[in-house]
């Protein structure tokens, strides 16, 4: 099973929930936590494990051989303006390239062979109970999507379907979020009960519905703001999986890089509530 933890708004507690939920479930099940927020991966700060693997991740970019008849087909073919003919030169802009291969395959003179370009690093760790994989986007690299896709691929190759796979997803509603959640069996949207939290939750719900995803909501910092998020979920028939109280102790523990659920009993209670709801949805097996 694949469970993605996402949110429209940033900083609502995705990582707090993902790391605690994964660690808790891993006490009695096979679990791998995957940090797909590759622009700003934070889960690692809360998971204290031994590194077992590291690899560079590449995407394939065409590289001009320097010898062709300058027919100009490549720049016509590219839908992303990543190839331009300037005088007697063909220039490739790697940040704009989506690695669709069209220019390379269709070049009549095979003058654009594909070359790997490093876009990030994948790291794997192991704690006593939990497996953890994260990827970090190279700074200056603009596209998170290919790195997210390859990270999921790595996880699927290395962990069989008996594992519960928990994806810590990026914030927002655009393409990185789609990539991180599109093959999840269930999505947990984390929000906070404020006007910003509600507005961004509505956008995230729209995305999930468009993708036809099963999803539920966790309200974090409950007690702050107002009841509008709860009312909205009720009106829309969205299940509220847990309400985590607004508690300064949680913010303080988080700030120091500590897992929350082991220290705060009220948080652990909500985690149990979440677990039993996920069990009801057949997302995690009963123990």
């Amino acid at each position: 099973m694949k469970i993605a933890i996402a949110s429209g708004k940033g900083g609502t507690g995705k990582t707090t929930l993902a790391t605690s939920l994964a660690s808790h479930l891993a006490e009695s099940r096979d679990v791998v936590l995957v940090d797909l927020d590759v622009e700003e991966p934070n889960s690692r700060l809360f998971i204290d494990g031994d590194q077992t693997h590291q690899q560079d991740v590449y995407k394939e970019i065409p590289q001009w051989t320097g010898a062709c008849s300058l027919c100009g087909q490549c720049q016509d073919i590219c839908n992303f303006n990543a190839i331009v003919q300037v005088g007697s030169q063909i220039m490739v802009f790697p940040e704009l390239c989506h690695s669709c291969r069209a220019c390379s395959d269709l070049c009549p003179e095979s003058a654009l062979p594909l070359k790997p370009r490093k876009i990030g690093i994948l790291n794997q760790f192991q704690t006593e109970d939990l497996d953890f994989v994260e990827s970090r986007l190279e700074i200056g690299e603009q596209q998170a999507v290919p790195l997210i896709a390859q990270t999921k691929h790595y996880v699927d190759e290395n962990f069989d379907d008996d594992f519960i796979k928990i994806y810590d997803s990026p914030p927002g509603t655009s393409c990185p979020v789609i990539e991180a959640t599109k093959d999840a069996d269930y999505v947990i949207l984390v929000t906070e009960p404020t006007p910003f939290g509600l507005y961004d939750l509505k956008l995230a719900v729209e995305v999930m519905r468009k993708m036809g995803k099963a999803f539920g909501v966790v309200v974090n910092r409950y007690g702050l703001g107002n009841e509008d998020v709860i009312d909205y979920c009720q009106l829309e028939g969205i299940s509220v999986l847990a309400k985590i109280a607004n508690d300064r102790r949680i913010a303080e523990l988080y700030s120091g890089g500590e897992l929350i659920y082991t220290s705060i009993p009220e948080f652990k209670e909500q985690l149990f509530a979440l677990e039993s709801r996920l069990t009801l949805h057949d997302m995690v097996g009963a123990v």
Partner: protein
Amino acid sequence: MKEIVVISGKGGTGKTSVMASFSYLGQADLVIADCDVDAADLHMLLDPDYQNSEDYYSGELAILDQEKCINCGACLDVCQFDGVQKENGIFRIEEMNCEGCGYCQRVCPTAAIHMETQKVGQWYSSNSKVGSTMVHAKMGVGAENSGRLVAQVKNEARRIAKAEGKEIILIDGSPGIGCAVTSTLSGADYVVFVTEPSVSGIHDLKRVSELVQGFSIPSGCIINKYDLNPQRVLELEAFMEDAGIEHIANIPYDEGFTAAMLEGKTLVEYENSSVSQILVESWKKIKQFAKV
């Protein structure tokens, strides 16, 4: 004209709340641009009137005509994105996966595939309640190319600033370090980081500030919720010193921001407090550091 960008790396540090207060303080000297197009929240505090709106088109989507399709599978063979799916011998385009590269269209022997430009959002120029023009956007769900929408919002803000003779464009950026942030930073004169003293806040600030340094843009930092973890504040201050980031201010954890938000207000208009005073001083410093 100076472009001042407010970003954070990490989400939820209070960037938009702080930025909204600066908008209120800057009032008529500004043009405001909300470049956090993924989760644009600034409008909830600045009450724009959506005076002008324009559709935003970006990227293409493959459309397959079943009547012309001979089920040869050429499209499936070339697609790198699982954008073509075969079910019971019938091919179809999976919209969510289609990257819009058009490779399938080029290899289809019966011209059964054509590409359509997608309307992926709208952008607006509005009068905001603080008296300055605000350029903002709403992106369609799951849309690509938020970087290009950001560029569009910024260009419009520049055009207006020029026409109105405004000195400052104040820009709210998105979390992360990807295309939307890179696009927000292009042409910026000064960057204000809003961070928090947590391991994540520090980690994310380091990554985004490396990106900013790559552009050689001077920057300063506000530590929000600074009383959460004094030790991490020291760590942040040491990093800022090393990285040449000016320390603008420390703001204590204050639920007044949420209380103000519930009334659709910026903190500085909601209350006259020690925190609002810090914001007033911060804005002065920022203008000075950005050489406005």
